[in-house]
């Protein structure tokens, strides 16, 4: 089990200290928060490969954190003597985990456990060239050519290959449309899925069949070529199939579903196939499953089946899922979330087990918005949302989203999202109708999750109406004609009745009208509060 991941100076991850859970881990965050980079770093340090090659052959200047590089160059320009930035990726395993040969204390935390680290640093052999580079006029990037990558265990001993004790399956939502048929991750999983003996048998038979092809059909073709080229060349040109070891069966054998080759399969099907392969490839090993945005290219039913497979995969395996989908998040368990923001991971634990299972059932809930928003306003319905947004614009000249405020509609069932906000320590304003109770009744009910100045509830004054519509009428008592015109209330009809009968339509008219109305006190108070 991976107990910790430390990443330094790798792409957008300047200092990352990530403590995953056993079993399922879900990493969520805004775009550019570093979620995929985290997964990439994990894959890199666990397999010692990137795109199927050793990292040393793939180092490029953009692997280095731009901030760290900029700071370095500034310091150097200022005359400081400084070591160039290093990329460090470390995985720590539980102390008792196999293989114990990887165990030692040579890691940035001096922790005694098995582990792997990837260090990308200035190659001492290139120090003179690097100094020369610094003195010359150079682009604001590090010359990757002078850097070396060392893949080490926690004894600082270099590894040549991935320890056989563990398997890594990388399932990404990216799809293949190339003629080569299968991407590297899938190819690796394919090779892992076939055991050694079967692999050898396939390899021998594959070579045999190619030999036969050369002997039969190609023999005729070669005869023709010979007559055609006679006298032109001293040697002979013949066509042969490649018999070298590198042209192994793995390159020619591809998975196929329902007689459709992998690359030709639908994008969703490719993801499903990869998941199925991973299930096979990592069976019986201490293994890690990395899943990147499983929701990509999948229909809702496709996603449901992939998530079911991922859950099955996770049984006993430590799994890391990066997602943008609330469905994936709800389904796999809200208590398994790691929140990434600007290259850092934030944990939140202690979510009530009942709430977790509630969201598993109600997987359509847009929990991701709650998780990602900086400030949240929870309202009851679509009409409340439209009125709130317009009131906000009228009061502040901006849209809520401009201030990082997400307005969410949760009906009257606001307890669960509120609990989530409480654990995430989000700033929240909850707006609700007083209905047939007192404001205090509702506040008392939500008490465990409220906190003055952080999470407050705003309930309409009972004297001004039990729902939004009578509240609007009370607020605009001084100029009911304007409100009536905006919502198109026919002459003679009671304005409150009209609003109540045409809730959403009226709210939409108010929200899009060129004219402004007055808003109930609890709404304006909520706006003032959430802007603080």
């Amino acid at each position, binding site marked *: 089990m991976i107990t910790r991941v430390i990443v330094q100076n790798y792409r957008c991850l300047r200092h990352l200290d990530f403590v995953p859970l056993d079993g399922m881990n879900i990493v969520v965050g805004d775009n550019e928060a570093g979620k995929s980079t985290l997964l990439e770093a994990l894959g890199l340090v666990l397999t010692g490969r990137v795109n199927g090659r050793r990292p040393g052959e793939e180092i490029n200047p953009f692997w280095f954190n731009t901030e760290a590089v900029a700071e370095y160059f500034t310091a150097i320009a200022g005359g400081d003597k400084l070591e160039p930035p290093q990329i460090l990726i470390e995985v720590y395993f539980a102390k*008792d985990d*196999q*293989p*114990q*040969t990887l*165990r*030692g*204390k*040579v890691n940035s935390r*001096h922790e*005694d456990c098995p582990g792997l680290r990837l260090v990308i640093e200035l190659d001492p052999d290139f120090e003179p060239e690097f100094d020369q580079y610094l003195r010359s006029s150079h682009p604001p990037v590090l010359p990757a050519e002078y850097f070396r990558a060392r893949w080490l265990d*926690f*004894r*600082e*001993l270099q590894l040549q290959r991935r320890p056989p004790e563990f398997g890594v399956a990388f399932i990404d939502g990216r799809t293949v449309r190339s003629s080569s048929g299968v991407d590297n991750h899938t190819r690796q999983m394919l090779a892992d899925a076939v055991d050694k003996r079967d692999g050898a048998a396939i390899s021998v038979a594959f070579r045999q069949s190619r030999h036969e092809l050369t002997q039969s059909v190609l023999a005729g073709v070669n005869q023709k070529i010979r007559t055609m080229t006679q006298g032109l060349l001293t040697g002979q040109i013949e066509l042969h199939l490649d018999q070298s070891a590198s042209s192994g069966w793995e390159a020619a054998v591809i998975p196929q579903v329902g007689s459709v080759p992998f690359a030709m399969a639908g994008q969703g099907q490719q993801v499903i196939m990869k998941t199925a392969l991973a299930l096979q490839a990592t069976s019986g090993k201490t293994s890690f499953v990395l899943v990147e945005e499983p929701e990509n290219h999948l229909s809702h039913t496709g996603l449901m089946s992939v998530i079911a497979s991922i859950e099955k995969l996770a049984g006993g395996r430590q799994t890391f899922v990066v997602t943008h989908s609330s469905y994936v998040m709800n389904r796999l368990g809200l208590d398994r979330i790691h929140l990434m923001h600007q290259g850092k991971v934030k944990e939140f634990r202690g979510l009530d087990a009942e709430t977790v299972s509630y969201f598993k059932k109600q997987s359509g809930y847009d929990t991701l918005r709650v998780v990602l928003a900086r400030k949240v306003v929870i309202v009851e319905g679509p009409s409340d949302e439209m009125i709130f947004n317009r009131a906000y614009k009228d009061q502040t000249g901006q849209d809520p989203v401009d201030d990082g405020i997400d307005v969410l509609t949760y009906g009257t069932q606001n307890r669960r999202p509120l609990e989530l906000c409480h654990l995430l320590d989000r700033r929240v304003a909850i707006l609700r109708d007083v209905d047939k109770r007192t404001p205090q009744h509702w506040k008392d009910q939500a008490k465990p999750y409220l906190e003055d100045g952080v999470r407050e509830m705003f309930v309409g004054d009972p004297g001004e109406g039990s729902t939004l519509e009578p509240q609007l009428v009370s607020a605009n008592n001084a100029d009911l004609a304007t409100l009536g015109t905006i919502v198109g209330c026919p002459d003679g009809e009671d304005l409150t009745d009209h609003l109540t009968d045409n809730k959403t339509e009226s709210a939409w008219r108010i929200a899009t009208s060129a004219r402004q109305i007055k808003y109930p006190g609890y709404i304006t108070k909520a706006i003032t509060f959430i802007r603080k």
Partner: protein
Amino acid sequence: MPEVSGWFSFLLNHVVRPYLPDVYPGRSVTGLHWVEGADPARFARGADRYIDPEGRVYSHRLGKLAYDIAIASHGAVVDRLERIFDEIYIDEVQDLTGNDLGVLELMLRSKMNITLVGDVRQSVFSTSRSDTKNKKYQGMNKVEWFREMERKTLCLIEYRTATWRCTQEIIDFADSVVPVRFSLPNTTSHQSVRTGHDGVFVVTWDHVPEYLEKFSPEVLRDKSTSKIHEGCTATNFGQAKGITVERVLIYPTKPIEAFLLTGALLADTSAARLYVAVTRAKHSVAFVVSDSSHHLLPRWTP
């Protein structure tokens, strides 16, 4: 999968590398710096006494570094080994010395099954010449260390007293080279082939060419500066360790010649070197002497 490695690599990879930060944080180890002769870090202090600027550990202080780390790790070194190995076999254990013995004792105290194999009478090499810890157990005295471990009930000693190589005459002679104070049991030969020239002999200097011609023995000498016949190729005692030949011809040192003549006890190291030289041969051992008349050993003449 069993792992096979030399003692130095074992100490480096399983003791020093994993827990070096416990003793010298910030230093790293890249390999071994073989030290033979002068001490390159004689006046160095701290980590520099053990590790050269390129990160290589000086071989003669590797045992001390390993032992210091094993102690500083508060049991982590042994715990780690126990989780990797069920059994450890160490061959030529008589060559371990000084602080190596400290590491070895920690291993004997662990849950692992440790099997040590060696012959103290062949103590001609050691992992460090300068390690002064456990000085009283140097060379053949190592047998007393094993006996000490047995008294502490950390191990059981089993004496193997049979040889399938040397004839009884040769092995009896070899046993007589070893000082009696070590109370090592006598050896029994299972070599039954007779060749017509079997046992231990003396050959005078002028008969050597004929002896070489007739028997083609492996020629052994103490060191490359020892005087031998011109045109004759010889192997030093130390280098002969581990080989098996039909016959050997030995150019004795002064003390060896004295031992042959009077039975005067050899120093431990000399005894060990002679023991190794003699026990290379299956059938015959001949010593080159200037005058064979006073020797008790049978003399060979053409």
